[in-house]
């Protein structure tokens, strides 16, 4: 799952949102780190709709233009939950390895073992 798709799914967990609403929510959730452009947003919405992870909730007229609201499907919720668990497992592994590395560093300089990079079970979204 791409980072964009992950944040779009998270943005739709609490309520159906329209395009701009999703942009704002993603910006807020990522604390400004993920700045979605319109092209990226609609590319992700197309993919998530095709994969049936989100669906159209309703359409409204807004200042003479069409506004579509999207909601998370049950499949989307399951996919998001699975991805979140995978990421959390990766974060737990990283935390464990960093904690285990600290005492070893106090007694000696960098050993061959200490130079090994921690392997993440999960990874980026």
């Amino acid at each position: 799952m791409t980072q964009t798709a992950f944040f779009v799914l998270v943005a739709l967990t609490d309520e159906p949102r329209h395009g701009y609403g999703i942009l704002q929510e993603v910006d807020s959730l990522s604390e400004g780190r993920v700045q979605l452009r319109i092209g990226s947003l609609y590319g992700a919405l197309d993919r998530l709709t095709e994969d049936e992870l989100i669906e159209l909730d309703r359409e409204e007229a807004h200042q003479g233009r069409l506004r579509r609201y999207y909601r998370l499907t049950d499949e989307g919720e399951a996919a998001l939950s699975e991805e979140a668990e995978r990421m959390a497992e990766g974060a737990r592994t990283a935390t464990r390895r960093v904690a285990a590395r600290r005492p070893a560093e106090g007694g000696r300089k960098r050993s061959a073992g200490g130079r090994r990079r921690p392997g993440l079970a999960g990874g980026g979204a």
Partner: protein
Amino acid sequence: MSSLLEKRYRLVLRMLPRSYRERREEEMVDTYLEEFDEDALDEVRPSLSEVASIAALAVRTRMGSAGAPARYAVAGATVRLFALLSILIHAGRLLTNNAITVAWMAGAPVEDRRMYLQSLDDFSLTGIIGSICQWVLPLGWVVAYAALARDRRRAARVAAIVAAVPFVWTIVDPRWFGGLSGFDIATTAFAWLTALAVCCGFHDDAPATRLPLAPPGLALMTVCVLMGLWNVSMTPSVDFAGPEVSIWCVAGLLWCVARARREVAALEPPLSLALALVGVAVLAERMSQIGLIMDGGGLGEEPMPVMWGQTALAVLLVGITGVSGALAARRVTREDPARETGSAVG
């Protein structure tokens, strides 16, 4: 009344296919304009990053991303197969040529070897850049091929562009000014079309694409062996395009057999269209080389009957694959009118 910004943004959206705009334009305009104050609507322009994101979406949509009409799905699959087959040819040619050069160096007379090494002994800036272009960067074809085999598309895009750079150097190298041949232009165009196809076809949303009929490693090894055999059997002539045309003819004949046995039905029409496109690129190299020889640019030992016979077979196969692919594409587009209109969103 629509604002200046809205008009400008709608102009940007015209990069998208019409069917996509019919589904999404109003919604995208609403999403975009929501960010701006009423007062600013006549004073700002869409930013470059917004325009770039729409351009990327336009390419992805035309390359058969999610929900794309049937004809774009066919176009995308064709471009991806074209990229894969072309990279296979480029990688095979590079490995074969390097292997033959090393083998020749090992057994060449001392005087010939010294003369060859002297040609690399140019430590001027252009000489160093030229050497890097000649020996290091083309390895990008092999890297791109391996990356695509593992579906590492970002790495494949970078490697393909890196591999295509030396072809630009061929054109800008001052030694070529006034002497650039049609063959140089044809090979440069083929290389950059390949890189472009990799960049456009293998976007992050594209489905995985694999070579038909053979695993990637076996396919590359077979191409190298066949190219090597052709080179050795044609010695002492220097037939630069011959190995590629031979490989393409073998692929075209294999396609005819597989099609007769209905083994590639699931890959049609993209496979036949991609083969035809690669065939056109390879034939362009072949014809430009023949033109060079006719103009007196050859070494005088080229087996012209073999070259003409090979070219005739390639032209015939390009015709068969191209017509077959075009007819199948027309059938697929007609059979999928629902997606063609692109009416459904959710």
